[in-house]
């Protein structure tokens, strides 16, 4: 029980975000399904922030943390940068039609 009280702020965010996430894309036309999936894919790349924190906190003699942290920074960046660029390329196709 203590767990819930201690984290109530976070739990509120979770509950509200679930509703918001559903509400925000509720009326998407099927044409946009793939770009939207790709855009959402880029957004969850926010996990990179965790990777940066891990990396930045690792002490100099902790090679495991350094190597894994470095790897996770690379992977996270791939997710973010690749995700946004691919989405942009998909959406570029839409802009031409007038």
């Amino acid at each position, binding site marked *: 029980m203590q767990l819930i009280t201690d984290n109530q702020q976070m739990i509120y965010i979770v509950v509200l975000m679930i509703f918001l996430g559903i509400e925000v894309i509720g009326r998407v036309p099927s044409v946009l399904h793939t770009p939207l999936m790709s855009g959402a894919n*880029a957004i969850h790349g926010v996990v990179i*922030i965790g990777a940066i924190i891990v990396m*930045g906190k690792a002490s100099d003699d902790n090679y495991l943390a350094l190597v894994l942290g470095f790897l996770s920074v690379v992977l996270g960046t791939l997710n973010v940068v690749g995700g946004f660029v691919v989405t942009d390329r998909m959406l570029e196709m839409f802009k031409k039609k007038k």
Partner: protein
Amino acid sequence: MQLHILTICYIIGSVTFILGLKMLSNPLTARKGNLIAAGGMTIAILGTIFLYETEDGQGLHNYLWIFSGLIIGAVIGTLAAKKVKMTAMPEMVSLFNGMGGACAALISAVEFDHVYREYRLDMNSFADVVPFGHYFTISAGAIIGSVSFAGSVIAWGKLNGRIKDFSFNGQHIVNLIILGFVFGVAGFTYWTSSSVTNIWFLITLLSAFVYGVMFVLPIGGADMPVVISLLNSFTGVAAAFGGFLYNNKVMLTGGILVGAAGTLLTMLMCKAMNRSLQNVLIGSFGAKNAKSAAATTQGSYKEISLNDTATCLAYANKVMIVPGYGLAVAQAQHICHELEKNLEEKGVQVFYAIHPVAGRMPGHMNVLLAEADVSYDKLLEMEHANEEFKTADVVLILGANDVVNPAAKSDPSSPIYGMPILEVEQAKMVVVNKRSMKPGYAGIENDLFFRPKTSMLFGDAKKVLQQLVNEIKNV
């Protein structure tokens, strides 16, 4: 002061994510929405690098490592995303999604190691020294991230044909057992008094990886977009657990937002195919007996020459084009547009009938034809197109197969039974362009090719269309 600025950075990040998703779901604002979310992400990342402070007021170090990681990732990511062909985009998305999952799993692994090192000397079991919530967050992030990574890599392999469908009887029961094992080991790691909990944690990670592989392996290649979308929301949840771990609101917001939106999107995709998620995930087990049933319906088909096709098209009043994956592979969208213009000059009405899941991803055909400058109002959605077929003289099918397979309406044993299709047979004549008689992506025979109204025009879509354009000019 620093921390307050960081908080503001995170708030900006969260707001741009919400705004970005909102704008991404409208064709007019989609591109801007993507850029806004990317901008917010940049602010949140830079803020973290320069302003983050640990509990004891220390800033981050190892800048060399961080920046080289960022640069390597950014360069490879940009190159990969720029170089990839339009047809290979869904598998690219899947791969990027897997990277995010792996990232989340690695973060959890490092955090576990951190806790393990700190308490190793004087602990009886993890449960004695680490609060359950903290351990739960770590292992949930690790498990979900690992599943998402493994699943995405398999989905990527399936889409580019490196990995074949694989299923055996009772596979979903085996999968449930594996899943139970994952949870079991995760719990054991927490409560055991073993001195090698790190090895148990590794087993948790590995078995979650195996579950991810087994989860995606039996699902048919044609359903991969749905699976990728589902794994996408998994990674979102894994990222959110990272947010819990560091009490980081922007990770939490972004992660949960994608988790919720991704789940809804998965269901919307299923709806576009008129199937339930359950049917997609475990429906593949019925596919075996369907194959034998379909194999018996072989018959003879008739071919049509380029010449005849050109004549039929040129003298028709209304032509409907049904594009499919074959058009995308052959990169024939531009020449297709030219054919359309040539026919219009001869007074033929031309429309495109777009099935929502034609190609490899929903909206694939729209993107492809938009690239070739095909006018938007020539693209008819399925319901509208099915009305128009009644008055069409010729239907030209370019590399589409499963989306016009009548078995979806008539054969309950077919794996695609129940999927709405383009009812091309209502037209007076059907010309099918394919490279060979091989069955389509879902691996099922198509009766349509053997029907009396249907004629086959074999060859690569681009070459055939080029020749058709030349012929039509001469008619």
